[in-house]
């Protein structure tokens, strides 16, 4: 039982997470205060929603760096439309419009990648620049502050379940946490129990074999990038709501942190691996690295070093594990290990 756990990547990440949390908590008890936990969850929720899209793209053997561009395009365009029409309705419409825009942009990614069989990194670097440039040039580049936002979004920003009184004021869990929980559950279910989920893993493991086994690669890729786009659209709207402004220059540039979280959680573009639990653990770990190391007295300038180190760590753990397995197999066969 313990040995089985030991082979799981998520186990390592959980251990690292617990050790880091306890260390920070022992040195600075404020870390475990409800206010801090809620604020961490708030940051983790935003990253978490994006990370679900990043996860399925990584599992399928691709990499998507355009999701921040999609998110900001969808959110900013939605807010522009709503403000122009003096929108007074409920919060659902902004989310629906933003999600649909994200879906369309994601499908464009999927078509370019799937139909022409092009490298995903280069295509999505291109579309990141394309989407953001299109938004800044054609839609606008002025930002909407809190007063200009539609009422529904402002109210949504203040919403809270579980309000707690603390010395520094009221704090609570934002309902977007449940959006993440819901989306996380869907992705987990699809990956674990459906043929669609199998096709993601199969594609990432070996595209050629997956194709010969009868998976429709083009359809799968359209679903993957379309879904990632939809999540980005929703995530973008949440960013707009939680920060209470529509800033066309925000989010883009943070994509590496989110990819880092998924990689740290065990997702790999090389081997059709990755899980929802691992990714969410990775998200929490990166969030703590970004927000709470200051509590330990580590200067904030070192944040990037640590995030970079985490990416390499996340990529290295599975490599070391497979090397160990290889050695053991080689020893069992009493042969010289095949290295290069």
């Amino acid at each position, binding site marked *: 039982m313990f040995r089985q756990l030991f082979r799981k990547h998520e186990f390592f990440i959980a251990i690292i997470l617990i050790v880091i949390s306890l260390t920070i908590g022992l040195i600075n008890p404020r870390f475990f205060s409800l206010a801090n936990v809620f604020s961490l969850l708030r940051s983790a929720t935003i990253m978490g929603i994006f990370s679900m899209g990043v996860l399925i793209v990584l599992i399928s053997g691709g*990499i998507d760096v355009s999701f921040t561009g999609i998110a900001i395009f969808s959110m900013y365009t939605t807010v522009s439309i709503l403000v122009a029409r003096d929108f007074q309705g409920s919060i659902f419409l902004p989310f629906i419009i933003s999600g649909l825009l994200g879906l369309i942009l994601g499908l464009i990614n999927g078509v*370019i990648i799937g139909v*022409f*069989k*092009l*490298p995903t*990194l*280069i*295509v999505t*670097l*291109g*579309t*990141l*620049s*394309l*989407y*953001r*440039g*299109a938004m*800044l*040039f*054609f839609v606008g*580049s002025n930002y909407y502050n809190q007063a200009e936002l539609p009422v529904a979004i402002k109210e949504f920003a203040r919403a809270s379940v579980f309000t707690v009184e603390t010395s520094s004021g009221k704090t609570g869990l934002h309902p977007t946490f449940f959006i993440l929980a819901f989306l996380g559950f869907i992705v987990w279910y699809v990956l674990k129990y459906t043929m669609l989920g199998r096709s993601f893993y199969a594609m990432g493991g070996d595209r050629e074999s997956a194709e010969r086994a009868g998976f429709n690669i083009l359809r799968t890729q359209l679903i993957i990038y379309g879904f990632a786009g939809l999540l980005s659209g929703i995530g973008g709207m949440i960013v707009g709501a939680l920060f209470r402004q529509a800033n066309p220059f925000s989010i883009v*540039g943070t994509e*590496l942190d989110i*990819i*880092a979280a998924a*990689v740290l959680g065990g997702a*790999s*573009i*090389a081997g059709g691996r990755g899980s929802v639990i691992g990714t969410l653990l990775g998200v929490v770990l990166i969030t703590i690295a970004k927000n709470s190391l200051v509590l330990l007295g580590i*200067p904030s*300038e*070192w*944040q*990037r*070093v*640590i*995030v*970079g*180190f985490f*990416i*390499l760590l996340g*990529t*290295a753990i599975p*490599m070391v594990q497979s090397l160990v397995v290889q050695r053991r197999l080689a020893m069992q066969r009493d042969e010289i290990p095949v290295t*290069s």
Partner: protein
Amino acid sequence: MSHIENTETHNQSLISRLQSFIKNGNGNIVRLLTAVIVIFTLLSMARPETFLTIRNMQSMAFQASEIGILTIAIMVTMLSGGIDLAIVSTASLSGIIAGMILTSMVPPESSAGTVALGLVLAILAALIIGVVCGAFSGYLVAVWEMPAILATLGTSLLYKGLGTAITGGVTVFGITESQFIGNGEVLGIPFPLILLLIVSIITGIILSRTRFGINLYMLGTNPTAARFSGIDNRRVLIYSYIISGVLSAIAGIIILGRTNAMNVDFGASYVLLAILIAVLGDVDPYGGSGNVIGVLLALVAMQFLSTGFNMLLYKSSGANFFKEFAWGALLIIVLIVNHFSDKRRTMRIS
């Protein structure tokens, strides 16, 4: 393979030589050259008084040189089928170290000897940083067998983080004497352009005339076949990332010289631009093909386009936004066009 030339071509007539040149897979170079000439003619006709001036040519050369060197850096790693996303981080880290050495070693109004010594040490240190950064990325890719994208994403953040940690996030400055590297001219030719040409020639020779170069193309075409023909894949990979690191460091020194300042967040968009130019210059992102001449032609075409956009959109503030949009669109279009022309090429062979 296009880079192995047929020695008997000099007996043939000019036209048949051109035909065989195109047949050898150089059709893209002819295409790029045509594009460069067309864009040049269009811009010359549209804005002769601003475009066709020595001043404009010089300013274009200044802008294109550093991005050109970064493109050659990323090209070398793309030839192996990998990619070095850490080029800009390496450049800024090298520039930061060089700048710190210069400002601490050469106080204002010091003697010519001190200045020269400081410059030599700063440049050496920057190049060493480039070697170390490249070697580390290459080590992760070659020995640990990490996917190049993830390994270099990680090292890119790591180097950027080190730059932030060393400087505390503030901008590092150069000294007056170091500005020659970025702003100087020799006989009216911008000094960075001379560096770009030297880098291009040396890299071109390394790629087409040395054992390492041939091995790199073979590794990029088919790693398994390369291994079974006795090539030490690991060593070739590590060398390719070291070259990329050194070239990035050179670009970093030029940037420090041109702006006289260096910041970790400088030139974040350069990675996209370098990939765009490389792909435009027909470097195959899956490895195995591409050369310096294609990259240089693509660089010239892109610089003309960039200047053209600035000239046509100078009235609105959105020229940069439009460029961001256009580069993305161009990258996608070129990828799709190459996809179809590659298909045609493979069909002709089979």
